[in-house]
Each structure stands twice: as structure tokens, then as C-alpha cells.
């Protein structure tokens, strides 16, 4: 187990393209760090630079206090789970898991057998030990790949989108398994994904990357509630945050469907008549008819025609089209960058599943404008980020990690992790 420090890491390819650009990131000992971003953002490249499969153009990669830039992968004492598992097809499950141990000199056969059994036990693979990978299901193969990773005691686990080849149900189960395993072993983990749910649920902290640049590193909660810019705000959350044009009009802010008072945080930072982009998450809305009056006072109420509704049993989404005007093109660009397509500008609103709103009818909605964020359309910077609240959330996350690492009975009594 070890901390991983990255200082100004750059990956430049032969054609001058920088896949990873000046990334500095500290991953604490025992921390579960998620690298997330749309495809081509450099997250996998960064992971492969940690493990040593990709050369580092410049910067320092420090694992457990040692600079490892020039070390071969085998000298870094890390283990990795590949997206396609990369199991050895000519070896049985047992030999696949034992492979890293066999490469280490001087481990007795008994010891190897014991450790493999323990790892297999943990992953419930014991009955499959004599089978070849070709005869296993996708989920079993995935577990074998994890077994191979946990069988030795390593400085860190690295996961490269390990669940993306599984179907949705299995993915949910394996996600919990990975989380449980990491908590038990207490090993530093770096996990690359493009999946929202994995990013939000697994990590202590999440690093959001965009075109090789690090955007924000924070706990999932902070990313969701206090994003630093429009990119992070749009990337985190599903369905994504709604972006609406907002024009400053004195101390009011005019949006396409309603107007609100200018938030205190933005005052003094914006000029009269300036065009901003307002960000409101789907769950910041509600069907106004199902609201108590106390809550109603805190936000803005507006009437709008619902285009489509989606009822999911436990939740319901309503789609409200609007005209974005000047910022349409910019929103479309952002959407494209976030791997989605904005065919039309529409407001996605999460309303109570009990609501009987009908399609093509007008409804009355309430927006929790207190939680609204304002972004500068040119830089994308969040003008209303609450630094104090963000610091609180960061503090909370730190405490959680410290508590987990400090508490007895996590890493110390785990046989697989024993040296």
C-alpha cells in the first residue's frame, strides 16, 4: 500500500498531441480515486502511465515515496484489471490467479496454493479453479481478473473500466463487490470509468478530466453540488444538468421560462445586461401542485407546456422545450464534448412519480433557484460556487477516509493482503 503522487504529468505523442496535460494529483494511501471524463480525455492514458505501460513525457510519478518514471511495470509493484480482462487463455483459473506469484522467486508451492485459494474464496471462484477462461461467463472472467490483481500484496490496484463489458445487472453487483473488496483490503485504488454511477458510488474522490486537463478533484458530493465549471457540472449527474441562458437585468436574472433574483454570490461579478448560463439539475424542480407552501416560497414558480413525460415507477421526468437563443451553439458544443447529443434545447425536470402531469398539457413547475449555479459563457467558470460549502464537503471526505484507514479490522486482519 502506498500513496501515489503525480506532479505535472504530461503525455505528448509524436505528433505533438498532448493526451495528458500538466496533471498534478495526490492520491492518499488507501484512497479510492476515480478518474472520469468523456472518451479521449486522457483518463486511461494517465492510468497506464501510473502502471508504466505508457512512457511519461515529463513530470514526476511518485509511488510510495519512490519516483517510478523510469521503472518497468514489473518493478512498480502494482496490479491492474484490464477492460477486456486479459486473462491467459492457456492457463486454468488457478494458474491465472497464481501467475503473479509464480513470477516472484522463492514462494513455496504450498504458499501459492494457500494464497490463490484465499483470493478465490473472496471472489467465490473456488469451484471454477480448474476451468479455462474460455469456459467462464463474463462476470466470472471479471472476477478471475480481480483475483489475479489481489493475490499479491501490491502498492495499488488499478482498474481500467473493468465493468464496461458486463450487462447492467451484473455491473451493479460487481460494483458493490469492488467497493467491498477495496474497503476490506484498504489498498490504494485508481479506477478509470466513464460511468456516472461507478464514479459517484465507488470513489472517495473523483478526478474529472477534459482533453488531458484536470478539471476538478473532489468528493462525488462536492462535484455534484459545487462544480468548478460548466464542464464538470454537465458531466456529473444523470440526467445531466440543464443549462439555460440567463440575462442579468438589474438585480434580477431573466431565464427563458421564469426570472429570479440575482444570487448573492454572483453580485459584483456580473454586469447589467450580461448573458450568463444558468445551471439547474433535474431534481431541483418539482411539480408545483404537489408542493407545500413553505418550500414554494424558496424558489420560482412557472407554467410551461410538457412535451414528453417518462414515468419510471420511483421517479418521473418531464421534458419542456425552450429556446436557448444566442447560446444554442455553445450548448450543443458542450453536449458533443460530453459524449451526448443535444438535438433540441429542452429542460429535463424530475417530478414526483405521483404527479399526473400529462403530455402536451401545461403544468405548473417550481424551481429550487437557491441551488442554481451561474456560469460564465466564455470561460465556463462557475460564478456561484460556494467555497465554504465545498471545503466542508472536502473535510467530511477526509474524515471518512481517515476513519476507514485508522479503524482496526480493515486491512490488518485480511489474509490476502498480508505480506
Amino acid at each position, binding site marked *: 500500500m502506498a500513496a501515489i503522487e503525480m506532479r505535472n504529468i504530461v503525455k505528448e505523442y509524436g505528433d505533438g498531441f498532448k493526451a495528458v496535460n500538466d496533471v498534478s494529483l495526490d492520491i492518499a494511501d488507501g484512497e479510492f480515486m476515480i478518474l472520469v471524463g468523456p472518451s479521449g480525455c486522457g483518463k486511461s492514458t494517465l492510468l497506464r502511465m501510473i502502471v508504466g505501460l505508457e512512457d511519461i513525457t515529463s513530470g514526476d510519478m511518485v509511488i510510495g515515496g519512490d519516483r517510478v518514471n523510469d521503472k518497468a511495470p514489473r518493478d512498480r509493484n502494482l496490479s491492474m484489471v484490464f477492460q*477486456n*480482462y*486479459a486473462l491467459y*487463455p*492457456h492457463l486454468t483459473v488457478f494458474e491465472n490467479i497464481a*501467475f503473479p506469484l509464480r513470477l516472484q522467486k522463492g514462494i513455496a508451492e504450498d504458499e501459492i496454493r494457500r494464497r490463490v485459494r484465499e483470493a478465490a474464496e473472496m471472489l467465490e471462484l473456488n469451484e471454477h479453479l480448474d476451468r479455462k477462461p474460455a469456459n*467462464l461467463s463474463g462476470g466470472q*472472467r471479471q472476477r478471475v481478473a480481480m483475483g489475479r490483481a489481489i493475490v499479491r500484496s501490491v502498492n495499488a490496484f488499478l482498474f481500467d473500466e473493468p465493468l464496461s463489458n458486463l450487462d447492467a445487472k451484473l455491473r451493479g453487483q460487481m460494483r458493490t463487490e469492488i467497493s467491498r473488496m477495496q474497503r476490506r483490503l484498504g489498498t490504494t485504488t485508481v479506477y478509470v470509468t466513464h460511468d456516472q454511477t461507478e464514479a459517484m458510488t465507488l470513489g472517495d474522490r473523483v478526478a474529472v478530466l477534459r482533453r488531458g486537463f484536470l478539471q476538478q478533484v473532489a468528493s462525488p458530493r462536492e462535484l455534484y453540488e459545487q462544480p468548478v465549471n460548466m464542464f464538470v457540472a454537465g458531466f456529473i449527474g444523470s440526467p445531466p444538468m440543464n443549462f439555460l441562458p440567463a440575462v442579468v437585468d438589474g438585480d434580477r436574472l431573466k431565464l427563458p421560462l421564469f426570472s429570479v433574483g440575482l444570487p448573492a454570490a454572483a453580485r459584483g461579478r456580473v454586469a447589467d445586461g450580461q448573458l450568463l448560463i444558468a445551471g439547474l439539475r433535474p431534481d431541483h424542480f418539482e411539480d408545483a401542485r404537489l408542493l407545500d407552501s413553505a418550500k414554494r416560497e424558496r424558489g420560482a414558480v412557472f407554467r410551461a407546456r410538457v412535451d414528453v413525460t417518462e414515468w419510471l415507477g420511483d421517479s418521473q421526468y418531464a421534458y419542456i422545450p425552450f429556446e436557448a437563443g444566442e447560446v444554442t451553439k455553445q450548448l450543443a458544443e458542450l453536449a458533443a464534448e460530453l459524449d451526448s447529443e443535444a438535438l433540441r434545447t429542452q429542460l429535463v425536470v424530475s417530478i414526483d412519480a405521483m404527479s399526473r402531469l400529462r403530455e402536451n398539457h401545461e403544468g405548473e413547475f417550481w424551481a429550487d433557484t437557491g441551488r442554481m449555479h451561474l456560469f460564465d459563457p466564455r470561460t465556463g467558470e462557475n460564478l456561484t460556487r460556494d467555497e465554504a460549502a465545498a471545503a466542508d464537503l472536502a473535510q467530511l471526505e477526509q474524515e471518512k477516509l481517515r476513519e476507514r484507514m485508522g479503524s482496526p479490522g480493515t486491512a490488518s486482519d485480511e489474509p490476502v493482503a498480508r505480506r
Partner: protein
Amino acid sequence: MSTSRRTQAGWIAGAILIIAYAVIPVLWIVSLSFKEGDDITNNAFLPTVWSWENYRTVFASDLFTTALRNSVGMALIATTISVILATLAAYAVSRLNFPGKRLVLGVALAITVFPVIAIATPLFNLWRSIGLYDTWLGLIIPYLSYSLPLAVYVLAAFFREIPWEMEQAAQVDGATAWQAFRRVIVPLATPGVFTAAILTFFAVWNDFVFGITLTSSEAARPVPAALAFFQGASQFSQPTAPIAAAAVVVTIPVVVLVLLFQRKIVAGLTNGAVKG
């Protein structure tokens, strides 16, 4: 319905035609080898009396048995060396980037299209002056130079099929480049190694040009060349039937080899390596 039946009939007819084309000459030689004495002029496909006489003649002659020993020995040595070198070379060609890689591949390809007969005479002179003429080594060297490029090409194709991740996983698991190659890549390329080995073996086994130009005695003469020196039971009869018998004898190992390794040459060994 009727069209599918007609296509099926067409396929069967075609298959029979092709099989007949390939098999009849072989059967003919087999039948010839069983004809006794003057029976070869019987104007019939099958011998009047089946006889082992020709086989006895063949094995009784020193010419054939030493030639057989030479052929087996040289083919095995050349194949082994060629496959080992080709495995390493193909790995380098498919995985590593080094200056002059294209040149190496180009030269390798050029060698395979180079006519064998064109270098037979220069080699004859060279070998005579440096003492390699009429030795096993003198034949194994040209065999290697002709079989290596072929083997490299076959193996490089197999190596390219193996996912990169296999090696990277091995490296992360703590393997050196050599260990990753030995313990992961080579086992995965086994079908390729066998294919290359068989092709090399055939090429060497069937060689005639080098065998006849670079040898002068039984010390190194391989079977195909030896057959040209074959004599019949008497000086005045054509040794057609004994030659047929010898041909059958040298064909048997090849057939056995193919049947033996057919199982090994199954693609799809990489099934299950990656999510498929």
C-alpha cells in the same frame, strides 16, 4: 428448395473433381509401387499381383536408407532451428519498433521469391572452397535461409492476432519481457509455431535442387536427390516401380505429420482471453 439442392449437387460434383485431381496421381504411385517386375506395363491401373518386392528392393539398397537418414536428420535440425529463430524474429517484427524493420521484412520477402536455382551454382563453388560441400551443414544453411522468411511471415501473422493486453498484463504481474514472451506469448502462438514447423519441414523434406547440387555422395544426399540415382533390379530395366515405392515411403512421414499436428493447428486458442 430446388436451387439449394442444385447448388449442393454442384458443390459435391466440384469436390469430387478436385479430390480426384489431387488423389489419383498419389493412388497411381501407390499402385505402381505394388507392381512386380514387368507388371508395370500391364496397361491396368491396379497390379495383377500385389507384391512387396519393390519395397524390399528399396530398403535393401544402402542408397535409400542412408538418404532417408540424411533427410530425416537434416529436416528435423533445419526445422527446429528455423522455428526457434522465426519465433523470436516474428515477435520482434510484430511487437517491437526498431530502425530498419521494413527493410528486414522486405529482404525476407525478397528471399522467398528468389529462384533457388539461381544461387545453387554460386553456393556449389563457395561450399567447395570452404569445405561445406557434401555435408549436412552445407545443406542445412541454405534450407534455413529459404524456410526462415516463410516461417517468420506465418508466425508474425499469429503474433499480431494475440492481444497486446496479454503481454501488458504479464508485465504488470511482474514478468520480464522474456518471461512474458516465454510464458504467455509462445503458448498462445502454439498453433502458429506448429504451422510454421510443418511448412518448414515440408519445404526441407521436398527439396531437390540443393540436394542434388550440393552433394556428391551418400554423406549428405537427401531422399529426393537419391531417387534420381536409383537403379532397378538389373541395369537394363527402368527402376520405375522401386522409385514409386521409395516415393510412397517418403510420403508417409509427411502424411503422418499432418494428421498428427492437425489437432494442434486449431485456431481460436485465444478464445476467452479477452471478452469475446
